[in-house]
């Protein structure tokens, strides 16, 4: 593994007489790529790594939900309604219709993760393309797109989601599409801003001079350079989409029975607060944990990309504190 530390390794090829013995030598081998550096910093961040592990566990549970869930999540059996946790193999008990709560939680993770990731992917795709076009070409395209975004953000996105789901009906596809359509604006603005900066760079000019096409410049040169902030934004969007889904399902405008989702389970639980208060706790905890994990990952990536390292800041803060205490 070529680490950054290889810089201190003895280098046979270095015979330059000007460089004195103690000076750091140029690294041998291939220098680590940007992705590798980011991963190195990311993997040293305990929060980000915890988030990653937790998310992987949830993905595993969602993929193998069928095998993990001990019962059919939609099976209604009034004879076994409102069982206490642990009775008859129902680890977390059953709800008012006799459905196994644990199995429903497991199956709900599928919906949440599916919506979270597909919304983020669609929104990032849409946002980067539109933002790229807007930032690269400018002119009237830019004006039209920016006015479109103005219109979209002059209504709270939850309002638009409620409106569309109520009018067009509650289908999973509509849910994903409308969540994506109300969340691409952030990415578009971000990419546009990046492009406004990047398009003035000399390498873009050089590419243009050598006859690279517009799409070549946009996709091969500019979008690649803007990819890190886009990734951070996308990660945070996954959490946002999961939260929006739970909210809409809670209002009865998202996932419908017999399918299950954490938000739907919550709306159900509020009616049965008196009989089974714990029923409301589990789904919310699941949402909290998943979104927290995703946000930790997003922040981890952002910190890894930030040249101003957090540790340096922390040391600086400590030093400043000691300094002011010393009373000089």
């Amino acid at each position, binding site marked *: 593994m070529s680490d950054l530390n290889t810089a201190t390794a003895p280098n046979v090829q270095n015979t330059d007489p000007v460089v004195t013995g103690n000076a750091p030598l140029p690294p041998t081998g291939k220098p680590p790529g940007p992705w590798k550096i980011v991963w190195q910093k990311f993997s040293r961040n305990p929060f980000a790594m915890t988030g990653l592990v937790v998310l992987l566990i949830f993905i595993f549970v969602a993929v193998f939900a069928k095998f993990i869930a001990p019962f059919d999540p939609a099976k209604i059996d009034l004879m076994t309604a409102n069982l206490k946790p642990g009775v008859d193999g129902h680890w977390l008990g059953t709800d008012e219709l006799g459905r196994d709560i644990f199995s429903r939680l497991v199956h709900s993770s599928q919906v949440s993760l599916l919506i979270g990731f597909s919304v983020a992917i669609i929104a990032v795709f849409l946002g980067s393309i539109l933002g790229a076009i807007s930032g690269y070409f400018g002119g009237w395209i830019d004006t039209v797109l920016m*006015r479109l975004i103005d*219109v979209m953000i002059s209504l*709270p996105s939850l*309002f638009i989601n409620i*409106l569309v789901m109520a009018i067009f009906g509650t289908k999973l596809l509509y849910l994903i599409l409308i969540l994506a359509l109300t969340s691409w604006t952030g990415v578009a603005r971000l990419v546009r801003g990046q492009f406004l900066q990047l398009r003035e760079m000399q390498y873009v000019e050089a590419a243009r001079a050598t006859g690279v096409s517009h799409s070549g410049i946009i996709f091969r040169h500019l979008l690649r350079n803007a990819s890190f902030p886009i990734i951070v934004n996308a990660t945070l969007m996954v*959490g946002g989409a999961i939260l929006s889904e739970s909210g809409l399902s809670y209002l009865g405008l998202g996932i419908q029975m017999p399918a299950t989702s954490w938000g739907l389970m919550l709306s159900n*639980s509020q009616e049965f607060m008196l009989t089974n*208060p714990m029923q409301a*706790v589990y789904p919310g905890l699941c949402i*909290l944990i998943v979104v927290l994990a995703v946000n930790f990952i997003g922040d981890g990536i952002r910190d890894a990309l930030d040249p101003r390292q957090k540790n340096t800041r922390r040391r600086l803060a400590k030093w400043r504190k000691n300094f002011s205490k010393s009373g000089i």
Partner: protein
Amino acid sequence: MTEYLIRRLLQSILVIFLVSIAAFGLMHAAPGGPTQMMISPGLSPETAAVQKHNLGLDKPVPTQYVIWLKNMLKGDMGNTFKNNTPVGDLIWPAVKNTLALMSFSWVISLLIAIPWGIYNSTREYGISDQSANFITYLGFAMPAFWFGIILQEFFSIKMDWLPLSDMYSMEKHGDLGNLFMHLILPSTVLILVNLAGYVKYSRSSMLEVLEQDYIRTARAKGVPERKVIFRHALRNALIPIITVIGMDLASLVAGATLTEKVFNWPGMGRLFVDMALAREYTVLMAITMITAVAVVLGNLIADILYKLVDPRVQLGRKGGKA
């Protein structure tokens, strides 16, 4: 400044106009649309046609839009389909109730958040800062309505300290003490959500200022730290905070849909969901427009405040700080 104001105002009107077209188009694009909603299912085709004509639904959609827009500008928001009550009778009380809830929680969260954020910026990574960080993560990752449900379960059902939901208890309408008791739980939820954003924001805004050269100069020439923070840094740090506050002004009118729904608060958010489920298009259009106007106005106010507090900002110039 005047020129900028006029241009900005025209821009806002254009955005509101576009929103109205989009919203109207969206509702009429729906399968069945308002027509299906307004015509009772049992009617014979002839009677249905007459009813359609009376309601003006047989005209082409653009004509309907113009009629609707004219009425709207006159302040007539139409009637509901079901009971034929004027939309205004539903909306204005809801606006009042939302305003009560939102402004109460908003003012409290600002009073907590800004001093807290400033304090944290002077003691980076201290205990207070870390706990604010914790709250921020929680506030961003937690479904707020779930927090509301948990609060209800503990404080209303288990402990029976606070009322479960609604705005007033039975037969206690207009009683301020009673209203306050009902306000506590929903505003706790809203305050937590607001805090998450505001503390983080005021901290980072303050930190950014504290790194400036003029702060170092002030410290170097021996200005007491207290004075550096309040006199030199705070004034400049408040500028971006004011912008964010201005942008959130709209939520005072638009309400918090999920929180209102959990606590059965008779505000705009709950009205919107209920009307969406009942497909009352006239009410939906009215709420949409009121919200859009509020958001656009809030942004306008934020921009103007920005200009007023920061003389450096040259508004209206392309690529400027605004």
